[in-house]
């Protein structure tokens, strides 16, 4: 039995290794791109090469927290009707759902994301917090990011309550989220008003803010803004859930 368990874990490790390899690979090629760019100009949009490299590697961490492998589970369970069973159980459905989701993404963060970032920080010259308060603030920022990601996944997934084409809408929204959240290009590079929206809007808490906290550019205010958006999103989730529950009760799920 021991060997069966051992072997099963080794297969898990194998797929984990490939996942990590993928993350590292993309981190490397994006780093190469920005290093090359910053050879042409030392300071751009208030960032230097170290800040941008930090952004690249924090992005790799955050990617695993936002675009998780189980991203369709909730929506699919709503569609298939399995989710109706959840409504019957006692307690707050939304709270349970988000707690479980958060637990899983925290695990991914702790076992994949953070070790990756640590290694990158050792090998490359990144601007990561080194003082205890700095590290604490960064940890808090990542935690808020994980919460925001769970909320985002819930809101997107809740489309399943209203339309069977939720996967289609998600593909459309994905492109938008990916770009405006700064996953393709740092939001600091956006022109004019778009930059302000990217830095302070609802999606900023996913990537832009954690990077700011990591590189120490107004960490405290970034954390405050993140927290605000999490509260706003919580209210949105709550009202969506309430509407969905009413709908399911009336229509029978």
């Amino acid at each position: 039995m021991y060997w069966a368990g051992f072997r099963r874990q080794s297969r898990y490790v194998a797929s984990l290794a490939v996942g990590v390899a993928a993350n590292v690979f993309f981190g490397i090629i994006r780093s190469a791109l920005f290093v090359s760019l910053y050879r042409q100009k030392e300071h751009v949009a208030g960032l230097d090469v170290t800040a941008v490299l930090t952004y690249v590697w924090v992005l790799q961490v955050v990617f695993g927290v936002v675009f998780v492998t189980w991203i369709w589970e909730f929506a699919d369970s709503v569609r298939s009707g399995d989710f109706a069973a959840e409504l019957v159980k006692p307690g707050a459905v939304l709270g349970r759902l988000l707690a479980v989701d958060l637990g899983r993404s925290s695990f991914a963060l702790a076992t994949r994301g953070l070790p990756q970032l640590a290694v990158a920080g050792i090998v490359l010259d990144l601007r990561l917090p080194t003082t205890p308060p700095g590290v604490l603030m960064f940890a808090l920022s990542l935690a808020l990011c994980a919460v925001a990601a769970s909320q985002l996944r819930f809101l997107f997934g809740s489309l399943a309550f209203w339309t069977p084409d939720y996967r289609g809408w998600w593909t459309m929204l994905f492109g938008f989220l990916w770009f405006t959240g700064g996953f393709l290009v740092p939001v600091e590079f956006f022109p004019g008003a778009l930059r302000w929206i990217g830095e302070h809007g609802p999606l900023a808490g996913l990537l832009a803010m954690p990077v700011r906290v990591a590189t120490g550019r107004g960490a405290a205010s970034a954390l405050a803004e993140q927290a605000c958006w999490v509260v706003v999103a919580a209210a949105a989730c709550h009202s969506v859930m309430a509407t969905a529950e009413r709908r399911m009760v009336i229509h029978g799920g």
Partner: protein
Amino acid sequence: MGSPYGALAGAKVRSLASAPGLLVLRSAGDVFIVTMEALAPLLLVSQFGSIAGWSGPEVAMLIGVARTGEGLALIVGRGIDPNTFGDTVRLGRFDQILTRPVSPLLWLLTSDVELRFVFRAAAGAGVVGWSAHRLSVLSPGTAVVLAAAAVASALFVLSTLVIGAAVTFRTVEGSDFAVLLSNGGMGLAAFPLEVYSSALRLIFTFLVPVGLCVYVPVLTVLDRDGPGVLGPGLLPVLPVVVGAFAGLSLLTWRQGIRHYESTGS
């Protein structure tokens, strides 16, 4: 006897037509994503002046070629998608395919045609066309080169999918590696290879030939030279290397089937 493969693909297309809403949404989503990706280099250039000496539209052309090829490949590649192929084998559906008088690979490629990737390919081609126009390099000759590049890229992606499927016969996890090859390769090829180290450049030009498929043809069209040995002169090597890569993938597929024959599902 006419070829049955056309009939198989036609059947899948007709069955897809029964759910148009989803198709439209996903296609629109793909077009949107490709457009966003093409905007990225423009944004970067507006901040940095250039990307390793390349202008925005020039880099966009690279992205366009890569996405066109990827889109073309995925139209037929759904059947061997590493995420779903494992299930196909496990659930015994592959056995059923083996009892048919067709090549199992061709069956897989033609019976799971995904129309939405036509739009990804079209979006990619649109980006290529736009950038070629912006750079005033549009001509019959360059069009041929770019089309060949797209086809070669498609062949590259398809070959990685075949390798992934073949590896799935042995271990389910192995196919993740093939996905890494194609996604990683395409991600790398979206920017001019000057940006990367020479080691990375060489690996991804000659070993995993994505550089040959995307970068070299675009160099030819733009009439510029790349670093080291990379330049338009390398273009004739493209069919040979990509052909060899495709041949390798078919070999691994054959091996995969032989492995399946001896161990079952």
